């Protein structure tokens, strides 16, 4: 049962990291153009970036 002292905080921290990441992504506008994001990875850069 002593393990719970570690496990519960660890579980909660992991969840919180996910939540904060999600809220950051929404605020940044990462979900504004899902179709465009899917298409952009297919665009070839003619010259590799330096």
């Amino acid at each position: 049962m002593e393990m719970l002292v570690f496990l519960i905080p660890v579980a909660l921290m992991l969840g919180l990291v996910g939540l904060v990441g999600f809220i950051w992504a929404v605020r940044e506008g990462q979900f504004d153009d899902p179709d465009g994001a899917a298409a952009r990875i297919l665009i070839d850069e003619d010259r590799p970036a330096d």
Partner: protein
Amino acid sequence: MTTAGNVTSGCPSGLAPAEQANAGDISAFVRRSAEGNMLQLTVRGAKCAGCLSKIEKNVQALPGVTQARLNLSNGRFDVRWRGELSANDVAGTVSALGYGVAPFAPDAADSAAKSEERKLLIAMAVAAFAAANVMLLSVSIWSGHGEMGETTRRVMHAISGAIALPAALFSGRIFFQSAWSVLRRGHANMDVPISLAVLLALGVSVAETIRGGEHAYFDAAVMLLFFLLIGRFLDARLRRRTHAAAHDLAALQARTVTRLEGDEARSVRADEIVAGDVVLIAPGERLTVDIDVLEGVSEADESLVSGESLPRAIAPGTRLFAGSVNLTQPLRGRAISAASDSLLADIARMLEAGEQRRSKYRRIADKAVSLYIPLVHTTAALTLIGWLLAGAGVREAIMIAVSTLIITCPCALALAAPVVQVVASGRLFRKGVFLRSGDALERIAECDHVVFDKTGTLTLGEPELVRSSHDQDIVQRAARLARASRHPLSRALVAAAGAGSVAAHVKEHPGLGLEAEIEGVRCRLGSAEWVGEETSSATTSLQLWYVEGDASPYRFLFEDALRPGAGDVVETLRRRGISVEILSGDRPDAVATIASALSVTDWRAGASPADKVERLEKLRAAGRKVLMIGDGLNDAASLSLAHASLAPGGAMDVSQSASDGVYTGAGLGAILTMIDASSLARRRMVQNFSLAAVYNFIAVPIAVAGFATPLVAAVAMSGSSIIVTLNALRPGWKRS
């Protein structure tokens, strides 16, 4: 590889046809600031990665462009640049690539809807985080039942509370605010029982945790919020998308106006025009303001304003309304104010009256709530009193009463209608039908009488040459003159003739016709008097006369052709027992032709906007639920008065905003799709409310008897929500 033209024009994957749309002068839409110039465009036809890179690369190659970013999801194209580059060059570059382009003026409603959507998404994420973690702890407590020590359980409850309390208060504020605002006005909506259930569940759980009791409902409170927020978020997102799509349709018409300042002509946005400004209207331009004509003799197509399909002769002193198209010669006019006597202001007033009446409509969900609240809350109160009388302790009685409130589950009930609405309007959206309001589906499903406008709704709104025993040769010869004109009849003649040569030095005489000398012979194309034909029969049908030299004149007849599928739609409606009526502002004989082609016996012609409103009032008084379908300015008031209303995508923006939905495409098949989807949606909503009721019939006795543990509540709540959602998603929606 095919020809270079096919490869470079439009979507390289062939997902959308190439478009050639001239946006006109759009320099008035540029926003200038210290950092440079900014322009937002709406691009149509961009579908794939190829489109994206083609458009962005070509615009970025323009001198001074610092940013060009296309949003593929909604077609918005943000361009920023420094220096002297003209906005028209930016738009021209995109349109030369084969994409439709129009300036986009962001409206306040859109950015408000966007921040609302974001708020819901974040609230949903917080509720999801809390629900998942609290459930993790709750499952441990339930499965450790009997083995877990009291201290451990208490700690677990305390951690659950520490997560659930702030999360529920944060995510639930959307419901609390809405519930409080209606309660203050003495009403109740679905948010009232939701807020009550959440707050009571939290309160009881906190008390139990402090006391060291066995049952806490933290998981139920946050799970309830999570499920409801999913529904709310999807609803908000779909509403914003439909709003944006409808806004884009209207933006296609939001043209600029050429204002004359002294000798200088400047292109400005229509909303910058004030009364008294002198404007220049080029041939082929659609008016966006009401004007008094000062100078110029021309003809105007007023089919969107009055429903009249024949062009009207325009001379100085004539008043022209927004929505008319100037046809032959440039006009100068003075803008008249939108004062109380102007047509647009009248219509706006009538629109407001219609909106007010419509907001009184009671949805199925409203009816369900008004049944649900007294029933459930009385049951909970009776449970409390019953257990007290039966000798239970106060704490125990309160626990049971609260568990009754939680388990009667406003969740399934609150999801029952929105989930169906989201599914139905989502499917309609993909078929090019944009629903404006959430209750439109319910109202459309109730309609038993359909009123059609004629010009532009049942018909294409463009004349077409009647092909009888016409000699193709004479059509070709007449077309040599017609190619020089923008008159709708000339264009129809050219459409029938196809490609060919155009005569030199064609002179256009407004209201009369065209004249040119071809190989020494004077040729004329126009009205009967223009070619010297003394026609005794004052026929008013659409016609053109053509004469070469002294030969006898030849007559071309035109008709405003029916839209594809119009006959089918009317026939299907009639078979379903829905009566059909045509209410038009056009001439009686033109309406009669269309009515007989569709075998509609109930038609009225020559109706002014006020006549149309009067007719709709009469139908309403007779207890008919009217579905009105129209496109013109003259229909706007009646569209807002009807029980439900639809407008085609090419309609005036006033008419579009007055109606519940907008459908795109040339055919009328969308109307049947919409009616089918509405009645199916209505059936599904009733089913869902029945399911929620059946669920409550089973759950309430269990809760009243005191058997509703948090585990039972959690299973019941998610079970019923999933059943309601699955029922909404169940196939049965027509695919094509």
